[in-house]
């Protein structure tokens, strides 16, 4: 923009332009389309800034200040009141206050109570999960850490976080805008994941969604998933269970209300003093090398590693010099899918005859638990199909929920006892039972590509003694995030 035009434009916006200046500005704008375009762009920035400012709050941690009705809105809200009975409440809701959505339920979010309304303000959730209903009836669940902002009842900007949406016909066209692309729902259910680093993903659970990334438009159907990248779309595996939906929020809320988080912390504190403790991983202090995403654990704002891609893993060293005659392994796990034949919970590196007793703990192709120790053999007549100790009850119904998995190994009693959600499941008997050996290991992977874990692991306990059935039960009950 040339200097004169720039100055005149500035004065026009400030209200300080004089008559002579205004007529020069008008003349310049009349003469040249390019000048008009640049002028329009500056005013367009002004509009966009005003939109952003509507959602801005001075104190990011302060509770929501309900903004005064925007200038001049009340008048024409009343104009609508005479319009249509069924729509009146709806109209007032949208127009008198510009509420785009109503909070239905929260788990672990302090400054948003159920029933409160969301407008165009920018929201940051450090921890917790939020269930809401838009003015058009779309049900949306957002899991922290998340940053989002409604632009209208039909348009939600998600800068970070994980969202699932259930979109009824009335809200068809509900749109989620992410930094790397846009998802437009054409009805039913989908999820959007905007990780801290990397491209946003769209997962279609049912129905159809249009994904727009970098001028690439793609129609996604049930079971499709893509990452929206600057170069267009890249196919992904659908992980519908990785998205929290509204029924789970209800259970999480009840768990928090019942004081489960404090119970869990107390149980962990007690375990840390256990003389036989080898490792208690709560993933809170960072640490742990490998390839994984850090997402929310069972509690609002807590952390858990999430394994998504083949080869994602978390490395640890559990000290190879010891042998453990008795060993208890327990973990809170959230499985997203069970497509890989083996899902690694804890795999020590290698599988060598020279290292008898080394431990491989996994979910197997029957979706039951397996604890394999190198060199061990099952007692004659054991029913396990692969000649390894396996549990009986599949974890399949628990996909998409936090589940507690535990196993107790006793080389002297020659037994392996499995527990699912605190309940004893089954016992395998061994003919040969070496003391357990640990050492360098991975969670979520082994040194082969067929051990992919799809999901999150919160808390993992590795204890050098055999817990009792009652202890396992108590461990589950104290750590259960649901009620």
């Amino acid at each position, binding site marked *: 923009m040339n200097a004169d035009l720039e100055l005149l434009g500035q004065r026009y916006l400030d209200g300080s332009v004089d008559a002579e200046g205004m007529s020069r500005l008008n003349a310049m704008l009349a003469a040249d389309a390019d000048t008009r375009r640049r002028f329009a*762009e500056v005013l367009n920035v002004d509009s966009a800034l005003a939109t952003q400012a509507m959602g801005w709050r001075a104190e990011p941690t302060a509770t929501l200040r309900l903004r005064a009705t925007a200038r001049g809105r009340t008048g024409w809200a009343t104009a609508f009141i005479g319009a249509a009975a069924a729509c009146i409440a709806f109209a007032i809701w949208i127009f008198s206050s510009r509420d785009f959505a109503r909070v239905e339920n929260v788990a672990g979010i302090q400054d948003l109570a159920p029933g409160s309304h969301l407008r165009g303000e920018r929201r940051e959730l450090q921890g917790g999960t939020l269930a809401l209903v838009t003015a058009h009836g779309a049900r949306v669940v957002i899991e922290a850490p998340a940053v989002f902002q409604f632009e209208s009842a039909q348009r939600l900007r998600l800068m970070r976080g994980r969202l699932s949406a259930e979109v009824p016909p009335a809200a068809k066209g509900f749109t989620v805008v992410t930094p790397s692309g846009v998802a437009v729902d054409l009805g039913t259910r989908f999820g959007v994941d905007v990780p801290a680093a990397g491209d946003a993903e769209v997962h279609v659970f049912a129905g159809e969604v249009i994904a727009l990334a970098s001028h690439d438009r793609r129609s996604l159907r049930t079971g499709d998933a893509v990452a929206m990248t600057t170069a267009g779309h890249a196919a992904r595996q659908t992980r519908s269970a990785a998205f929290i939906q509204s029924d789970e929020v209800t259970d999480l809320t009840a768990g928090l209300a019942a004081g489960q988080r404090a119970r869990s912390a107390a149980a962990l504190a007690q375990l840390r003093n256990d003389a036989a403790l080898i490792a208690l991983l709560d993933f809170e202090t960072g640490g742990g090398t490998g390839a994984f995403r850090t997402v929310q654990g069972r509690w609002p704002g807590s952390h858990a590693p999430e394994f998504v891609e083949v080869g994602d893993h978390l490395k640890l060293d559990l000290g190879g010099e010891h042998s453990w005659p008795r060993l208890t392994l327990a973990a809170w796990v959230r499985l997203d899918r069970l497509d890989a034949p083996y899902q690694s919970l804890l795999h020590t590196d290698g599988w060598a005859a020279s290292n008898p007793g080394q431990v491989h703990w996994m979910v197997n192709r029957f979706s039951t638990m397996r604890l394999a120790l190198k060199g061990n053999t099952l007692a004659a007549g054991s029913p396990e199909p692969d000649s390894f100790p396996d549990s009986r009850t599949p974890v399949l119904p628990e996909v998409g929920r936090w589940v507690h998995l535990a196993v107790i190994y006793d080389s002297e009693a020659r037994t392996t006892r499995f527990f699912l959600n605190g309940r004893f499941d089954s016992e395998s008997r061994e003919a040969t039972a070496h003391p357990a050996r640990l050492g360098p290991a991975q969670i979520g992977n082994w040194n082969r590509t067929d051990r992919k874990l799809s999901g999150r692991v919160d808390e993992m306990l590795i204890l050098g003694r055999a817990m009792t059935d009652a202890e396992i039960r108590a461990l589950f009950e104290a750590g259960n995030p649901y009620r």
Partner: protein
Amino acid sequence: MSPAETKLHCRFLRLFTTHEESVRAFVRRLVPTRADADDVMQEVSIVLWKKFGSFHEGADFRAWAFGVARFEVLGWLRDKGRDRLVLDEGVALKIAQEAEVLEPALSRQREALERCLVRVPEPQRSLLMRAYQPEARIQEVAAASGRSVPGFYQWLHRMRKTLLDCIHATLAREASP
């Protein structure tokens, strides 16, 4: 209220909320201040609802709303132009006509603003947001920032310019593979 009217009203609300931001920005480009844009927008909303019966389902709501808004803005300019300095009708008409073609680009620019805004460091970002509050008094915001009013306007102007440069750069970067 008949079920047909209820249905019509719901349909209107759906379309209006979807396109409101574009229409508001359209109006804003043609009048001197944001407060003026709010006044015009209030009229535009009422006219859109009154005339919605003649809007054909499946037609382009945004184009239709731009047409209604253009008519309202031109009336407003004619009215206010007697005692205020505003755009010439001919200029406004040209900008309004060009909006049809430019709107996709302008809409992308409005979206990109947010990505640029997060890169504005504090306390500048807060100051900018405070100045853009609907009920903001520029004198107060300027005083709070330790600037004179003209100095503050100058600063606002520089910020808008910087943001627009950032928007262009961001969109250019995102467009290249």
